[in-house]
């Protein structure tokens, strides 16, 4: 796999963009980026036909490195820009990468409505449970009782389960993975991108710099090990009790349904309007 990623790097990353990237050593964002280009290569998508859009935060810096049509939008609004792009040019494959704060705090309204509308987009939400770039403030997914720079006495808010939220809001495809389970992540991303309708892939990722440091997980390896221990496959979770699942989360495909998506439905409206 390493060797293959080497040539993919050459094929899919920008040659004229200076590296190193902005992410901390050990950051999970790089693993997500690797998975993303492997998934795209597997699907055989043309770079010209791909859009990678992002909002603000550490995840927001991902598009600049890939050699697609890329967009670094405003905080929380990437899905709205992507909606305009997709509707204006339905042939484009539009992928959006967001963070937990980006997608579910400031962009929470756009997130649930994109899912409800079931527009043909793929949203990758990198959930590191913290605002990393701005300095470790608590986010809508920071666990109850953990610490952040704006939760110095311990977080008294309860976290959003992002994938379950997406299922309820109506997304066609919903999955959760982690940066520890990288091979599985390739599969989830490829399936999500290929799916017609709104796809959400929540990726549990490590921010040892801002989250781990304040919560007794000072380095990337400790956090990855933590994900390995917490993650339970959807199948196994179905056989476990609520007590057994406490402090754990499911990984795998949570929803995969076929239903009318906005992009195709609107094309039908165009045809009806033309005939009138």
């Amino acid at each position, binding site marked *: 796999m390493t060797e293959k990623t080497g040539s993919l790097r050459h094929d899919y990353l920008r040659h*004229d*963009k*200076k590296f190193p990237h902005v992410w901390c050593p050990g950051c999970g964002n790089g693993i997500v980026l690797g998975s993303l280009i492997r998934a795209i290569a597997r699907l055989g998508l043309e*770079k*010209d*036909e791909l*859009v990678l*859009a992002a909002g603000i935060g550490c995840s927001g810096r991902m*598009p*600049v490195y890939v*050699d*697609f*049509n*890329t*967009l*670094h*939008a*405003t905080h929380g*609004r990437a*899905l*709205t*820009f*992507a*909606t*305009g*792009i*997709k*509707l*204006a*040019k339905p*042939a*484009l494959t539009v992928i959006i990468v967001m963070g937990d704060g980006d997608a579910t705090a400031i962009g929470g*309204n*756009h997130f649930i*409505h994109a899912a409800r509308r079931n527009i043909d987009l793929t949203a990758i939400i990198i959930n590191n449970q913290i605002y990393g770039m701005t300095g470790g403030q608590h986010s809508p997914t920071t666990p109850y009782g953990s610490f952040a720079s704006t939760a110095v006495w311990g977080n008294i808010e309860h976290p959003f389960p992002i994938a379950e939220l997406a299922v309820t809001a109506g997304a066609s495809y919903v999955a959760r993975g982690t940066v520890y389970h990288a091979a599985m992540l390739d599969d989830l991303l490829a399936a999500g991108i290929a799916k017609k309708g709104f796809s959400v892939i929540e990726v549990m990722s490590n921010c040892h710099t801002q989250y781990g440091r304040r919560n007794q997980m000072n380095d990337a390896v400790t956090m990855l090990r933590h994900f390995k221990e917490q993650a339970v496959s959807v199948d196994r979770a179905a056989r476990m009790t609520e007590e057994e699942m406490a402090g754990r989360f499911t990984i795998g495909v949570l929803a995969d349904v076929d239903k009318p998506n906005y992009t195709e439905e*609107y094309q039908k*409206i*165009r045809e*009806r*309007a*033309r005939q*009138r």
Partner: protein
Amino acid sequence: MSEKTGQRLLLQGNEAMVEGALAAGCRFFAGYPITPASEIAELMSLRLPAVGGTFIQMEDEIAGMGAVIGASLAGVKSLTATSGPGFSLMQENLGFACAAEVPCVVVNVMRTGPSTGLSTSPAQGDVMQARWGTHGDHPVIVLAVSTVNDCFTVIVQAFNLAEKYRVPVIVLSDEIVAHTREAVVLPDPAAITVIDRMRPAVPPEWYIPYEDNSRGVPAMAEMGSGYRHHVTGLIHDVRGFPTERPEEVDAFIRRLFHKITNGFTEIQLTNPVMMEDAKIAVIAYGAVSRSALRAVRQARSQGIRAGLLQLITLYPFPRKAVEAVLAQCRRVLVPEMNMGQVIREVKRVNRTTEIVRHNRVDGQLITPAEIYAHLLAM
């Protein structure tokens, strides 16, 4: 559109906006319902799919503005329409359109504010917000409409300027113009000048997305056209990549302004009426300029040498045209349905001519009699 051309039609301002936008090549609308702008969205939802375009009602105005920018990046001329509260929500993404130089048109049908204000009454309180609503130094073009006919012609100009200068253009309407119905004859589409953004003439590997040129407006490649590049609201270098180098930041901000300054003569639209021998003048815009026109005619019939300068472009402020009026006239009246916004700009032009204010903020249109009374006193 074609079946309506050449016929005499009774149209509302909001309806004429839609006809004008479609004639200018607009094929995308995203917005959120709000009085008194909703008719624009309603009519767009009916008309756009039939011409292969797209209408979408978003979850709020923030999203509406975002989708408009996205569609424009994908190469489609895009519009949104709103009123004060929604215009406030759009400011964030309007700034993105300024920074990333994304052509688009925003109609703000002004109603009385602040806040929810009087949702069904007209005002002109959003002039300064249209110019400076989003944060940071930025260029923007602001046009004002006063008649149903204007709604058609000015929105065509708005799209043309947006495309030519790669800048958001804000069209300020108001509740009166929006809901007034007048009999109009829509021009033949062949007679309308429609300008499209300049697209790159070089092969993709030579394309430098934000490279300066003589006009200061870089060629714009749409997503999916083979010219893969990066678009960001961060300050960027000529390749579109984020930069913090002072000389690149400086060059970027200055080019944003220069491209508008370069075009002053064609951007700054005004309509002087009976100004040739005027000794006193009214400077007005929007629905108020109609009241001013009547008052000026009445004054003329009484032998008073009064004139009117109607401002169509509010920003970049048409300083040259105003300067000439101030040099020619002893006194100038600026009637506005706000506490005094354009009058500040007029006063900045010259400090020697006496500038008289007339402000009305009760949700009612300034009447000709109010303006005429000033003209008698001047």
